[in-house]
Structure formats: C-alpha cells, structure tokens
C-alpha cells in the first residue's frame, strides 16, 4: 500500500491481501492503479484496500474479505485466516462440491 494500514504486515505494515471475488456476484476484482481501489469489472463495485476492504460504491453488499497474513523470520508470508465469507462458498475451506 505504501503506507501503514490496519491489518497490514511487513516493515511498514503496508502489505495486505483480499479475496479476489466480489461479494456481489463473484466477479474478479482488480487493483485500479490510478485510484488505488479494488474494482469489480462486471458491476463496478469499488472496495478500499486501505480501509480493510470497505465497499465505497456499487452493488456489493459486504466488504471484501480480508486475508490475515503472517510473516516469518525469513520474510515468507502466509495466509493465516480470512475475515468474512468469500463469495460462492458456504464456508471458507476449499474442499467441497459445486452447488447445482
């Protein structure tokens, strides 16, 4: 992020991670370099990565789930948990089968 944010890790507390699935209909969100926001291309929900993934605009009903990160002494980063339910899942574990 280039600045310290809540939930950020690393020397400047500026490293954050989010689910890439918009909470509206699950389209991929991407970082818009110009605004620094995470934007869903399908229906234009906008999330602020500096504010824990808060929705600032659009149809998304929830904030973007933020991934809790851990850094070890070698500097390797691990995903350690997730705050909020990722679109499409019934829980945040990755096994399971498709709903028809």
């Amino acid at each position, binding site marked *: 992020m280039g600045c310290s944010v809540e939930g950020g890790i690393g020397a400047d507390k500026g490293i954050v991670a989010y689910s890439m699935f918009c909470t509206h209909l699950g389209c991929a969100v991407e970082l818009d370099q110009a605004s620094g926001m995470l934007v869903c*291309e399908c229906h234009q929900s906008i999330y602020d990565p500096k504010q824990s993934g*808060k929705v600032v*605009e659009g*149809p998304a009903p929830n904030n973007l789930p933020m991934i809790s990160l851990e850094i070890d002494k070698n500097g390797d980063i691990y995903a*350690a948990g997730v705050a909020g339910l990722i679109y499409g899942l019934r829980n945040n574990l990755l096994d399971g089968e498709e709903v028809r």
Partner: protein
Amino acid sequence: MSNEKEFSRRDLLKVSAAAAAGACVMNGMPVFAAGKFLEAKAVEFAELPPAHAETYDTACRYCHVMCGYKVYIWPKGTGLKPDKAKFYPVEKMRGDWPNPIFTIEAKKNGKDVLIMIVPDNKDVASGSNYSVRGAFNAQSLYSEKLPTRIRLKKPMIRRGGKTSPLVEVSWDEAIGFCADNFQKIINQYGPDAIGAVYGDWGYLQNTHALLKWLFTGIKSSTLAGNGYLFWGDESWGLADVVGAGTRSFTAEDFTKTKLIFCAGKNLKDTGSSWYYQALSTGGMNKGDIKMILVDPRRIQMAEDAEKSGGLFLQIKPGTDAILGASLMHVLVMHDLYDKDFVQRHTTGFDTLKQTVLNSRFAPDNAEKITGIPAAKIIAAAEMLAKHKGQTMVLFEKGIMHQVVGYENEVAYSAMGIILGNAGKPGACTSRAGGHPRGTWADPPAPNGASSMRSICEKIDKGEIKSLWAYISNIYIQLPNLSKYKPQIDKMFLVVNEIYPTDTTAAADVVFPAATWGEWNTIQASEDRRLHIQQGFMEAPGDAKPDWWIVAQLAKRMGLSGYDWKNEQEIYDEVRAQTKGSFTSDISEIEWKDLMKSGTNGIQFPYKNRRSISRLYSPETEEVMGRRFKHDDGKAHLEPVKALADFDPFNHPLRDKITNEYPLWMIMHRANEIWNTGYNFYNNGLNVPLTPNLYERLPEQTVSINPKDARTIGVKSGDWVALNSRNGSMKAVAKVNGLTAPGVVDVMSLYPKTESTPNMVTSEKADPKLAEWDRMVPVNIVKV
C-alpha cells in the same frame, strides 16, 4: 437545531473517519484470530433452508426493475448445516448465493424462525442480478433483533389537541377520533379542507382505497402524489407525443439494443439490474452497446459511455429541450431521420421541421446555451442516425422535475420518434422509470381538474385544515419545508407510517402500517410486469395494511363500498376498472394467475390471455387495434411547436441566478438510499436502520467544482450551509470534478431533516406538470 445535536453529528463523522482507517472488519462479519489457514475455524452459514422451509415469491419493492426474490422461512435450528464446503461456481455469477446478510432471525406465530430473502435465479426482469438496496431486503424486515425493532406497533392520538402527548390507544378509539375530527372539519370548511399526500408507488390496494375515499367518499380534491404538488401528469410532454406517459420497453431490450441515449437518469444507481444487463450481459463494457449519456455530472456512467464508444454530453442543467431541438435540427437538416416511420406513424412533421430548423437550434447556437460543444452535438446526432430503430431513448426525473419539464420531455420524445425508436427490439422512446408502479384506478377529481390546485397554494391561503400523510414522509418530500413545515405542524395531521419519523412526531393521529412482506401487496415494474409480493410474515404489534385503515375510517364516517374482506377483493375491484385501457389493461389477470406467476409476474396490457411485451409495437397494433395511444393511432409531433420561443432561463417560474445566489444546486438519488430513506436512516429517533449501508453515506454531501470551492474558500470535509431564497440546509463539502463550475450537487431526499434538500427548494410549480424545480439557486458558506 441545538448545538448538542450539531456537535454529536460532527463528532460522528470524525469517529467514523477514524474507525474507517482503523477497523479490521466491518459489516458485522466474523473476525478470525490468526492461525494457519486450513486450521482456521470456517466462516459459514448458521443454517440454510431445509426442504420443509416455507417458500414464497416476491419482488423487490424499491426500484422499477422489481427484481425477483425467493423467500424461505424455517424454524430456527431445523435448517441444513452447511455440509462440507459446497460452493457456488463463480463463473456462473449466481445471485442466489445465500450471502449471510440475506438471512435474519425473527418471530412467526410466536416461534423463532430464520427468514432468507435471496435473488431468484429464474427471474427474467433482473437477469437474476440485484443491487445493494435489494441486498438488504431481509435486513429491513421487522425483527426485535434488528434496528427495525423501532417499528410502530400501536395507533396513537393526541386526545387533547396539539399540546397534549401522543398516547397509544385502541384501533377503535383512533379511528373514531380521526373520523370525528375529519367530519368536524368537513362540516365547517367543506371537503377540500382535508388533503392527502400519498405515495403513488404505495401498493395497488392502498392507493385505490385512499383515492376512492378522498375523491368519491368525502369528495375532496386536495391531493398530491409523492413526486408532485397536486394530481397532475408528470409525463405530460411524453404523453402529448406518444399518447401516454407509461414506460414502453421490455427488460430484454437492455441487452438487445445497439445504443442507449440516457438523459436525467442514473440508471446504474436507480435501475441497477437493467444497467448491469446492458453493461455486462449486453456487452456495453466491450462496446457491443454504445451509450450517449446526457447529465450535468460526470458520473461513472459518463466513463462507461465514453468507454463504450459513445459520448458523454455534460449539459448545463435545465437546457435539455435545447439539446433535443438541436439534435433534431441536425437530423432533419441532413435527412438523417427515419422517413418511412415518420410518414407511416406520425402526424405534424411539418410543424416539427419548421420549428427545429430555426437557426437558434443550430449546434453552434445550442452550444452557447447547453454548454455542449457543437461538434459533440453533431457526433451524437450522427450516432443516433446510425442506430435509428435500434436505440433506447430514455429520460427520467432529472429532466422532468423542473418547471421546464414539459419542453424537455417533448424534445427528447419527438427526437426518439422521428428516428423510429418505438416498439422494436432494443428500441423505445420512453421514460426510464423510477419507483415501481402502485396506482391503477384513476378516479376523476370530484370538482374537475380545475379544483386540483397546488397543495402549497391551498396551504398559503389557509384552505387546508387537515393533511393525511399516507405512505409518504411529507417532512422529507414536500418542497420548501422551511416555509411549509411550521404551517403543517399546526394542522390536524394524520400519518400512516411504519416508523416513528419527524412527521409522526408532529401528528395528531398516527396509524401504524403493515408493509411489504406482511400481506399480499401488488406493484408493477416499469416494463409492466404485475407482481404480487407475497405476504410471508406478521406485521409488528397491531399494525395493519393502509387499505384496511382507510376502510375502517370510511365506514366510521358512514360511507359505503369499503367492505373488502381481503386484499384480493380490492384487486378485483381495481382490475375491472382497467378494462379497455390502452397501456394498463389488467382486467383479465386473475389473482390466482398472479399467485402462480413466480417471481416474473405477468406483463400488461394483457388481452385475450396475451401479454404485450413492447408498447407502440406491431404487436400492440395487432392486439389493441392501433399502434400509439392517440385515437388516430399515430405519434404526434405538433407539440414540438412549444420549443419555438422556448428560453430555459426566462421561464416565469424559474428562479434566477444572481450575485447573492450564484450556484445552481441540483440533486441526485444515491445508490444506497431509496425513496425517503425510510429503511436507511430513521429521522424520528436518529438511528440508522441498515447500519452497513448508512456507514457508506453517514452525512449529506455537496459536490463542488474546485474553481467554485476556491472562490467560496472551502475544502473537502468542511461543513457548509447551502442557502437559497427559501431556506437553508447543511452538508459536508466534497471538492471534485463531478460538476462544472457554477453547479453543485447534493443527494435528494437525504433523510436527516437539517440536511434534506427540500429545506431550500421552492414550491412554484408548473401548472400542468404539478412539478416544482429541483434546480435551486444557492450560495454556500462554511459553517
């Protein structure tokens, strides 16, 4: 307003700004302590609908799309546990993924139940999409576990007049008290001394009951709809051209069209599912559909229009009729219109030609008034010509809620028609739509149209002694509240409401109303799909449907014809009255058909068991006997002569820009706030009702161009007062490039009393449109 309140509001902003930067998680979603990912406790649904869940069909009550939703109800603890980690495939974009906010806990028949309201994957009108407003359908249901616990539950009256307290009483006493007071006023001053302001979206049965009681029961002609000041036709300009103000397209046009011409309507924020269909399904984001957007504000849709290969025409507010005439000037001058369509389906083209070829409408001259470069006007005309017969020409309140609304509507309507945009797949000339439709039977006013004078004019003359606010928060919706609120406070004020509000606080009688989901309400989308929104839960306390309240009152006043046993009986009374209506015939649609129609409803006009999907189409001609609603079956272009001497800023009712009031204040609807924001923020108790939405827009804001901001000396985040000749309102400044210099923009109907734009609007209304100007000259000062 006390300083105490003022400070708490300001502090709130500071706190929420700090919280925003600091909070890890919002929206009440669970937080998990760090641990290895696969070891972390799963975030999961508490319960999912079991096979034995009660199932209902409904449609969203907010905007004109009326997206279809499924409702599931089951006893708490009997639902399915999420087995393993079933997932909804993301590539299918399934709206029916049961987001946890779609489920709430409530009571039914005294038992704890879970209620889930989830977008229906089979809904045609929405393409199984939804907006953030509909996403909170479940969260705005009544539950003691939610902020909605403040719903009104008992009738209340002021037994001893204005100075006595509002006390809870029985229905019998409340109805009797209200009937006695109404009767006394009628006896002393005549029926017109009783007025009603009603929400014309407020469900077919309710609107019918009120209009019947007012017009044919007590015979008062003092009525205003929620969007206007009296019983007028806000679509008068469109109706003069095509014969009716009804919307004429069907939902699939949003994916079939080649070009969308959109003026005075933020379709993205106020008709979202249709916009998403054009954008994503129809491929506007890839240029498959182009868009010409006409708006004074550079909103997201402006970027989308440009990206689609279309155009953004940043217009000076109030000048749409000039732009429309100028586009027609180019189309006619260069023979770019649809000659065959004009010849076969219109009258009055010579009048149109003579009017629009006047050099005042040449693009160079139109540029001076509209602020749109002549080259862009010419490019827009060429694009419209290229896609003639394939364009959706859509306009709505941004151009209509003005004292020059008639001229604006005529200009765009005629422009759409001479290009043959009517009744074809992907082509229409239509209002875009606002809220769902809730009024069908249109009884005539008792003393003829001349008795219908502006409700404000009647208040000024002291002719109104009692006002009934019916599915309408008048202290947000009426214009010039700075002047009229103190006067209405003194009247015998009756209010039907679901929440305690600023208006109920001033009332002599408060009737608690049952609402969406609590009985079988009826509305129609603006592509004319009639829906029953099935009742699935009980109303809180003693709350009753509005139609029931009217019926009790009417009977207590000795009137007959109000013995409806249920909402179906009113529907049957109404549908019989629509027989033969060119645009609105629902007479053959039976209750049982609607109950079986799923979330799609039944499209009308409906004749010989056949729905007409597009008005003004060959199909319309086949079923209804003529193509357009006018008796001759043609579209009329003669009304364009109204543009001959038209000067938007010298209209006698239009307020003027001066040194003292140098800025035009315009307004827009926010994505998150529907209607009066009644499910967003409660201005009676000053609490957010859907906190997750509220945190996105915790205060009114005013967008100011950087150039104006420098002159005024304000920066983003400053609290400012906007002062007009009528009154004052407060907002937080947002300095940005949304508007051009000289124009500032606020949220319309923002539900905090001191920040609602109607504190500064004027009540001067167009004598036929019943509309007042939502463009107001203001000055801005830092406070």
